[in-house]
Structure formats: C-alpha cells, structure tokens
C-alpha cells in the first residue's frame, strides 16, 4: 500500500527527516513511537503534502503510484486521511457542512452519488453513536472552542465518515480521557479491513493495548532506528529512550 524509501525532508533548509524507510501492506497497523521532536509529525505532514515542508530526497509510492506527484487534495481524494496532532480551527465554517462537503468531494471523485443533507444525517447519526460524539458539536464552527479531547474525537469522527484507505493518526490518543481512549480505539478498530492500513503515531503503549499493531517503529532524529512487533512498545514503556543516547555515542565512534 505504502512504500517510503530513503525519504529526506525538512523545513526552511533545516533537515528533519534523514532517510526514512518504511513499508506498509494492506490490512496492517503500524505504530511509530519516538522522542519529542524526532520528526513523527513531520512524516505525517509530508505524507499529506503540507507545503511548509520540502521533500529533499527519496520516494513515496502509494497504491503503486508516485505519491509526490499528487497534491494534498488529490491525496485525500485517493483515500489518505491524516488526523492532525493539532486540529485547525476555522471560524464560520460549520462543522457539519465541512464534513459533508469533504465526503461529497470524495464520493464525487469515486463516481458515487453525493449525499444530500438528509442522507448525510442518517449516516452521521450511526457513526456519532459509535464514537459517542456530542451531536451539538456538529452545529458549531469547525473545532472553534472545542476542548482538546473534543477536537481529537471530531478527527476520529471525520475518519469514520470518510473511511480512508490509509489513515494516519498523529497522537490522536493524547488528550483523551480514559473512556474516550477506549471509544476512539473501537472506532479505529471498526475501520480495520484487509484493504486498509493504519499508521498510528503515539507516545503511549496504552493505546496499543486497544489497537494491536503488526509493527512498531522507533523514530529518532529523523530516522527509524528500531522496528519490532507489538512487544517493542511494552519494552519502550519500561526503558524509555535513554538507550538512544548510548547508541548515538557508539555510532559516533567514541
């Protein structure tokens, strides 16, 4: 589904991603962990084509196509969804209208009939129940004045409605209360299918108890320094990232 080869990217001439290699197959869930500032959000933003970042080398192939040829909108239409670590507020853009517009843009792209307000409400109602989302949020401006957790749930609700082929979740678990974490995890699990993949960025092993990953990777200083199975997450929970310094020191040849 997704092959990333030797990806280098940065911002304002400063290198952040320094050669990422990652392969995600359909049906898989990958988790990326790693210290603050290591480049996890940068990776997700680059996958979504945030133009603030420049791609300085390497390649990304998505469903057999060169992803770097597509702009943000086209990537979304092709089924890539990113839940933002910091969802953006848009005053005056009604949350429900926003989502309906997005869903219809995607349906139109796939040659499906667009939903009218009534159809949309029917579909939304179900998913809202699944995620125990307060319907009142739909009447408000997009993310404006939403609490941290409400923003994250709203991201998940959008994902549930848009049913992406590749979902990238950037710390969607941060800021969720204990119940919400369980509910949101159910939402993500409900999306899992053999033709879909999920890339989870998280700091906490706790999420991975609900959503069991096939692979766990550690990103440090712009590179994937370790990969393993789900047990790697529990190991990290115990050891932290201190070992990275020793490794860097060794790599430095001292």
């Amino acid at each position: 589904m997704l092959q990333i080869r030797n990806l280098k990217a940065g911002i304002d001439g400063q290198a952040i991603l320094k050669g990422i290699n990652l392969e995600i197959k359909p049906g898989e869930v990958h988790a990326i962990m790693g210290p603050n500032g290591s480049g996890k959000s940068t990776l997700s933003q680059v996958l979504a084509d945030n133009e603030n970042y420049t791609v300085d080398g390497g390649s990304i192939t998505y469903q057999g196509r060169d992803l770097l040829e597509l702009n943000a909108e086209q990537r979304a239409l092709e089924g890539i969804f990113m839940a933002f670590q910091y969802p953006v507020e848009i005053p005056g853009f009604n949350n429900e209208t926003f989502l309906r517009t997005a869903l219809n843009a995607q349906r139109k792209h796939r040659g499906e009939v667009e939903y009218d307000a009534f159809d949309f409400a029917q579909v939304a109602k179900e998913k809202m129940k699944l995620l125990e989302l307060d319907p009142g949020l739909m009447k408000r401006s997009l993310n404006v004045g939403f609490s941290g957790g409400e923003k994250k749930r709203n991201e998940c609700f959008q994902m549930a409605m848009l049913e992406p082929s590749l979902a990238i979740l950037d710390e969607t678990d941060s800021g969720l209360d204990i119940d919400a974490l369980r509910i949101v995890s159910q939402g993500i699990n409900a999306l899992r299918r053999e033709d879909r993949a999920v890339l989870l960025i998280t700091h906490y092993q706790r999420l991975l108890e609900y959503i069991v990953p096939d692979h766990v990777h550690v990103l440090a200083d712009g590179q994937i320094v370790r990969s393993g199975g789900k047990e790697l997450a529990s190991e990290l929970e115990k050891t932290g990232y201190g070992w990275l310094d020793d490794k860097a020191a060794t790599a430095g040849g001292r």
Partner: protein
Amino acid sequence: MRNEDEKTFEGLADGDYKYGFVTDIESDSLPPGLSEEVVREISRRKEEPDWLTEWRVKAYHHWTTLEEPTWAKVEFPPIDYQALSYYSAPKQKIAAPKNLDEVDPELLETYEKLGIPLREQEVLAGVVAVDAVFDSVSVATTFKGKLEEMGIIFGSFSDAVKEYPELVKKYLGSVVPYKDNYYATLNSAVFSDGSFCYVPPGVRCPMELSTYFRINAANTGQFERTLLIADEGAYVSYLEGCTAPQRDENQLHAAVVELIAHKDAQIKYSTVQNWYPGDKDGKGGIYNFVTKRGHCRGDNAKISWTQVETGSAITWKYPSCILKGDNSVGEFYSVAVTNNMQQADTGTKMIHIGKNTSSTIISKGISAGKAQNSYRGMVKVVETAENARNFSQCDSMLIGDRCGAHTFPYIDVNNPTAQVEHEATTTKIGEDQIFYCNQRGISTEDAIGMIVNGFCREVFQELPMEFAVEAQKLLSVSLEGSVG
C-alpha cells in the same frame, strides 16, 4: 505541484471580471473640462427648469472652494477634474424611447449579456421592476405602467424632473445638501441621470424595484443621482447593481442617493456593487466615491441599507441614517470584499435625534491579496435622543498575510440614557486552514467560498432571495485565487 498551487494561491488572474466588455455604441458627449458653462450646458441639454439649473450652478461654485477629502485610508494619484468629460449619453436612434421596441438593440443586448433582461415577460416572473442606467442615462424602465396604477412613480430622474417637478424640487438635496461634501457637491453640479421613486401613503410596493448601473464610455465621470421617497405608511424594497468595462484608466464614479422615509414608512435599500476592480497590479478600475444617506423623517420610520461591495479599485462610501422620528430604526448590513490592490474605506453613520431610536450595524470586511479594507463608522446620539440604542458588530477576515483590515469606530453620545454596544473580531484564514480543508478533499476554491459565505451569512440573509444567491457567487469570483 508546489508551483501550480502557488499560482492559484496568489493573485486573481486577469480576465476573471466577466462584465469587462465594451459596448460599441455612439454617444453624445461633452468635451473634457468643467466650468459654469459646462454645468449650464448639461442642464440645457436635459431641458431642465431654471431652478434646477441655478441649483447646479450654486453647487458648482461651492465645489470650486472645496478641497478633496484626505481622511479616508485610501491612496490614489490626484484626479485631474479638467481631463474628464461630464456628460455622455448613448445616442439613440430615437431621442426618448417610449417603449422597449424603440430602445437601441445594442443596449438591450448589453443588458442581456449582463444577465438583466429588460423585456418584461423575461424579468424574473414579474417580481422585479428594472430601471437600466447606461452611462448615467436611464435607457429603459420596466413595469412602469403597472406601478403607475398603484400611484408608484418609478423611472429615470430626468423624466421625474419633467413630469413631477414639484416632488423633485421638494426633496432634492433635502437629505444630502449640495454643500455636503466634495464629491456630493460635484455630483450636484453635474449629475446626468439616475432613478427616481415615490411610493404614496399606505402603499406597499408589490415588487422589488431595481436599478442597474452600467458605465461604458471611457474618460467620462459618472454622476448619477437617486431619490427615493416612501410616504406615510409606505413600503419599498430597492436594489441597485453596478458593472463597468475593463479599462486601463481609472474612472470616477461619484453618485448620490437620498432616501426619505415618512411616518410609519419603511425603505429597504440593497446594493450589489461590482464595478471593475482593476487588474491584479492595480491598473485601472473604478473610483467609487459615493454619498448615500437616508432620513427617517417621521415617527416609526425604518431604513435598512444592505450592501455587498466586491468591485471598484477604491470604495469610499458610508450609507447613513438620520433617525429623526421617534422610535425610528436604522440598519446597516455590509459585506466589503477587497482583493489584490483594491482599497475600501466604508461604513455608516447613525445619527440618533428622536426618542427611542435604535440602530444596528453589521459589517463584514474581507481582505485578500495586498488589499486594504477599513470599516469607518459613527454612532452619534444627540441630547434629545432619549433611550437611543445602538448595536455594532464589525468583523474582519484576512485571507493570507499581506492584506490589511482596519476598524475606526467613532462614538459620540450626548444623552446619558443611551446604550451603545460595539463588538469587533478579526479572523485569519491562512495556509493552515486551507491545508486542513485540502487534506479532507475540499479544493482551495471551495474552502474559501464556504468559509467566506459562512462569515457573511448574517448580511446575505438580509438580501432579497435571488440576489443573495448572486452575491454569494460574486464573492467566490472576487476571491478566486486569493491566498489560502
């Protein structure tokens, strides 16, 4: 892909102004220059009565003593008033058309191209009566007969001067005196035509009345005058629309609108202004320096101004209400959009004189490109205005980070029972928001359109239905390609 996106992000492409064509029609113009003789000549050509000629001449002499105002937050090179021509009328085959069959087909075609059919059977199923003004001369008025049956006078200003001189004499300059300000004084001296409307006591005008202004001739100043009177208990809803060809030179448009609402009368005046804004480098475009004022003369009178301003290189405009009658109400709903190099300094004045008068101001300014958008508003409560109420809400939206929004509220309260509230917000639409929309599959164009329409909803809902739709489209076109 980066380059492509930047293209759509930055600057409006030329040629997006779809009303930019020129009609090839012979016109009857005066040579450039302004003098007492020119003013008298205009009046002579229009066969006006002496009192009106003298009124014009008085205005002209007063104008020569005035200086152009400089307090607005707009910049433009000095205007050479002697280089302009002050009279241009389309030379029609037959001097004064009695019905549409006598109107020059080129003119009818122009209005059809603009989407304004003048043949009555085509006019929005009879809900709108139209007065079409071409280069400051009224060329056709629809539904005149039907309105006359109800005693409603609606037609060109020139016809009204001939047919209802007492009415014109009684009201002309009674709201905007000829000495009012530089541009209004100039207009008083040289105005060529415009619309006139009178609704008699107790009559509710059954259809929207509308004037479509079209500037065609080059190097001519445009000076229309609109006078609208709602007598006791009358109601009228009025809409004006404006377009102009795309030309490299700036053109001056200095109009005056006077509204008079008597006791229990109500006037709703809506404007969709889409004069040519100039190209993306600021070349060409209309200087729209307009004086609009309404007078709530009797008790319980109400005047509402709704404006959607998307065009013009420079807009200088403050539709105002003088609330003289007790319990009278003034409203101002405004959307002003500026993109590229456009400048707008617009707002309102609410002057509370009568008891229990109230006013509402809702202003939405949208700025994109390198444009500057200013709200300038005054709320004045004089000593006599017991229990006056005002609520003002001024919201600015900035699209991209090279444009500016400014708010200049002036509040002058001289009666302790008054309640005046002012709220202001500024919203930025930046690349982050656009990226978020794109990431969900929404195009930049759609995203901006929807965000902006949401922002303007309170104003759009004040417009008559058909025009609200038109205004929304206009907004999307004006902001096409603006920064995300």
